[in-house]
């Protein structure tokens, strides 16, 4: 019931508040039937905020306060450890392999699912989702079963002198497994929605498939893609359970940052553990920040119904 023309009309005949008596509802402020009373509202907000502070914010603050408990010097000292640097390097390496692999796969899978009709499509989507619903420990275990010395491919790998389990390839593969769905999940609904029309228009103009991909498909999906890469990267750097099972915890060689945190913590080097943890927590905060920004800015271009 808002019409711009009211603004022109209203001053002509202003309401006379005193003539009929300002509405008071017996001293109460009028409350709409779909609203709660201010007291109820304040209580609900208070409980919700309290709950979130206790369960969400308190752990986050703890990470930073524990890291800095013994001052900045102690915090920086934690990074003097060469094993710590090795863990950071390995984490970056793993993410640098896993994210591009899943990026290429995510785009290919979304393309295949959105553009073609084939039998077993639903099954394929379920498979893509699977790593989300498998415990990370189980994810690690299945790689052990495949590639460990007694595993399915164990003897084969031994002959070829390739180590997968308790070595970097295992860590990379386990990470790929757990971060596998992020990008594909973001792209599939979006590509299905975009449909074929834009691409068909480009085809009739004589563009090659590659050119269409680069000039039409990619620009249309770039924000969803970035969103997926962001989540994929956060998980790749932070994965613990799956990596823990396959890494063998060889210090300085197969320990990623989360595993390094575990080792430091179990050796009672709390400040050092929290110092490394604060790096990952910062990464998480940056991820959340960009994610919120993308959701806010490009809400329409991101697929609805995110599930992680």
């Amino acid at each position, binding site marked *: 019931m808002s019409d711009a023309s009211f603004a022109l009309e209203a001053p002509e005949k202003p309401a006379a508040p005193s003539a009929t008596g300002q509405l008071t509802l017996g001293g109460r402020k009028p409350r709409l039937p779909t609203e709660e009373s201010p007291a109820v509202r304040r209580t609900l907000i208070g409980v919700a905020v309290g709950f979130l502070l206790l369960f969400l914010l308190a752990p986050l603050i703890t990470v930073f306060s524990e890291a800095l408990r013994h001052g900045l010097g102690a915090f920086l000292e934690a990074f003097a450890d060469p094993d710590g640097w090795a863990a950071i390097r390995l984490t970056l390496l793993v993410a640098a392999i896993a994210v591009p692999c899943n990026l290429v796969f995510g785009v290919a899978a979304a393309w295949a699912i959105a553009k073609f009709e084939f039998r077993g499509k639903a099954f394929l989507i379920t498979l893509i*989702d699977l790593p989300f619903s498998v415990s*990370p420990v189980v994810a690690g275990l*299945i790689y052990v*079963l495949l590639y460990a010395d007694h595993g399915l491919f164990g003897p084969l790998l031994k002959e070829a002198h390739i180590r997968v389990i308790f070595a970097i390839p295992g860590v990379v593969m386990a990470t790929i*497994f757990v971060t*596998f769905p992020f990008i594909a999940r973001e792209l599939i609904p979006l590509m299905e929605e975009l449909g074929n029309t834009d691409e068909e228009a480009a085809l009739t103009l004589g563009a090659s498939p590659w050119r269409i991909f680069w000039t039409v498909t990619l620009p249309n999906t770039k924000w969803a893609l970035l969103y997926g890469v962001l989540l994929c990267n956060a998980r790749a750097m932070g994965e613990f359970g799956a990596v823990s099972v396959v890494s063998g915890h060889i210090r300085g060689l197969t320990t990623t940052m989360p595993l390094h945190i575990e080792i430091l913590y179990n050796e009672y080097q709390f400040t050092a*553990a929290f110092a490394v943890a604060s790096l990952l927590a910062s990464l998480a905060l940056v991820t959340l920040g960009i994610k919120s920004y993308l959701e806010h800015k490009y809400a329409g271009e991101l697929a609805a119904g*995110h599930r992680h």
Partner: protein
Amino acid sequence: MAFTLAYLFAIVLLPIGALVVKASSLGFSEFVTLAGDPRTLAALRLSFLTSMAAAAFNVPFGLLVAWVLVRYDFPGRKLLDAMIDLPFALPTAVAGIALTALYAPNGYIGALAAKAGIKIAFTPFGVFVALVFVGMPFIVRTVQPVLAEVDREIEEAAATLGAGRLRAVISVVLPILVPSLLTGYALSLARAIGEYGSVIFIAGNIPYVSEIAPLLIVIKLEEYDYAGATAVAALMLAISFAMLLAINLIQAFARRRYGRV
């Protein structure tokens, strides 16, 4: 297309297949012996009970948080909304040591609880706290969009028919949210049962008391007991599939019942 299938095969199907092959090669009686081991049963029981309790705890609180975020405007609402995803984004190991530091007897909250005679860290209660942390966003994020789409007219309709505010919310809004609450519960539960990183630090990992099923897999692996680890994993995997199925059934039911009116 071929690439997609090949990649999927190598990364997902092959490993899962290996697990199934390994589990089935155990044979029924061996499987029962392994799965029936008291320590295994204790771990599974702990994982399930604490996960169900944490998910159940998260249902009312997640609903409350979703309600407050959707219906009210207050300073810091947007920030709070963004923070909901923290348990998704924060690496589990980081969450694990932070929760432990917080709830250990010398931590801020742990010390308070200790004064009241409650021990949180290194007990099943600690496991519960960690699982509340990891499971909370699932409920909030499944309920939030459904709540945002609830037509205010039905609340007004209830009011014109004489229903008080609380009555209207319970009898008219809540039923619409039930499918999403169930879905959120199932998602939260599925995640909690498999959760490892954020739990093992705070749990204390005392066999038969605070040892969770995923940890038992790790322990068995470290002892090169592949058969034992596989048996536990197969059980957990079966449960995960059952969860997925349940989620899909809930959603199908909701679509049928609440089809566009």
